[in-house]
């Protein structure tokens, strides 16, 4: 979210009455699941998303979302979007850059200079990729330093690449790259991978993935393109490692700038604090998915939280209870 941007006032004044019962900011697992339920509660629902589908669209294969043995991220999220629309939710491709309390309602300002009113807000903005912050990393972004193995891996056929990180995402990136590149290094600061054990087994079977532990990348070098990285401890007798591509999988940070504007309480690491009903400390503002202090960042958890957020909004707006809910 680009909260620092100043919006140019649109010619039109904001509507007097809220056009929407619920505005959902974010169109990933959480946002679109919230939209399906919100629309089915007969609430006038709008999803605002600059990137419908969310972070999972970068995944070539999703194998742990129940109901699908193997599906691409974009295909899965197109199904979510189609379902939300078929239930009656509207989807606006735009960036929500400001949200404020407007009398008893909320006013959302977007990058395309729209001002929209709603009675409740569900924040489902997910996370942003954590960038590699070492000399050279920015200079060589898209010229050797990459943040999406699915998108950019194909350019490294029979080349040498490295993946930074020890998570599930790193393992998935390394496995994908191992089928394209001749050699894949995993560089991780920890003592062992922290991904699912089954992924470690798969990586060993592939035969061209070499793991280097207790090691950090401190610099990225090259000419027109990246050609080497500098490590903080020697590997094979040298701190220089020749690679053609470097794929960064070092986690993510919550996209909670919008929540902060509303006075929503955040954790020290910037996650939105929610209770079990997905309520924040601000009445009428709910949050769901990876932007919250969820203990497990997974699509299915985010989807479930979206459902709870929509149910809480419905309960607040109508005073009605849902069978089986709190």
């Amino acid at each position, binding site marked *: 979210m680009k909260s620092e941007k100043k919006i140019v006032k649109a010619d039109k004044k904001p509507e007097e009455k809220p056009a929407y019962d619920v505005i959902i900011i974010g169109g990933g697992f959480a946002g679109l699941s919230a939209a399906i339920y919100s629309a089915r509660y007969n609430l006038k629902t709008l999803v605002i998303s*600059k*990137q*419908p*589908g969310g972070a999972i*669209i*970068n*995944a*070539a294969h999703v194998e742990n979302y129940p109901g699908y043995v193997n599906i*691409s*991220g*974009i295909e899965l999220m197109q199904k979510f979007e189609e379902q939300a629309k078929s239930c009656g939710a509207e989807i606006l*491709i*735009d*960036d929500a850059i400001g949200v404020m309390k407007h009398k008893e309602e909320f006013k959302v300002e977007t*990058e*395309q200079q729209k001002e929209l009113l709603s009675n409740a807000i569900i924040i489902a903005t997910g996370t942003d990729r954590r960038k590699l912050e070492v000399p050279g990393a920015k200079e060589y*972004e*898209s*010229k*050797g330093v*990459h943040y*999406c193995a*699915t*998108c*950019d891996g*194909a*350019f490294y056929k029979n080349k040498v690449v490295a993946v930074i990180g020890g998570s599930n995402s790193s393992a998935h990136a390394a496995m994908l790259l191992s089928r394209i590149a001749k050699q894949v290094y995993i560089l991780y600061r920890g003592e062992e991978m922290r991904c699912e054990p089954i992924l470690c087994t798969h990586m060993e079977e592939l035969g061209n993935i070499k793991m280097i532990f207790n090691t950090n990348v401190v610099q990225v070098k090259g000419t*027109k*393109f990246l050609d080497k990285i500098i490590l903080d401890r020697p590997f094979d007798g040298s701190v220089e490692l020749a690679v053609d*591509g470097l794929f960064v999988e070092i986690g993510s940070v919550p996209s909670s700038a919008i929540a902060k504007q509303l006075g929503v309480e955040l954790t020290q690491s910037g996650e939105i604090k929610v209770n079990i009903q997905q309520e924040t400390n601000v009445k009428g503002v709910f949050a769901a998915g990876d932007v919250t202090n969820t203990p497990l960042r997974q699509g299915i958890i985010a989807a479930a939280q979206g459902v709870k957020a929509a149910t809480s909004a419905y309960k607040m707006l109508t005073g009605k209870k849902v069978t089986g809910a709190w």
Partner: protein
Amino acid sequence: MVNELNDETFAKNIAKGNVVVDFYADWCGPCQLMKPMFEKLAGEVKNITFFKVNVDKCQKAAQEHDVRSIPTFALFKNGEEIDQISGVISEGDFKKKLKAVFG
């Protein structure tokens, strides 16, 4: 409708005027995400010609223009590459970039 270029037709089509080329692949999620916006702009913006190039089929064009990330949008003025945009970008930011390069 955005016309597709290949390795044979590429040079001729970017040689004159203001041109934007979308380097993409069918299997790339972010490329699919950008596709509707790119097609919309192609219909709206009159002083620029929009093309697309499938990097799986046209590796020569992608290599010659140093494309190592998709989607990449290459901006040409009379055949000279002025700038590149890589990754997912909002419509507003894309328009700003086009205006800055082509006016």
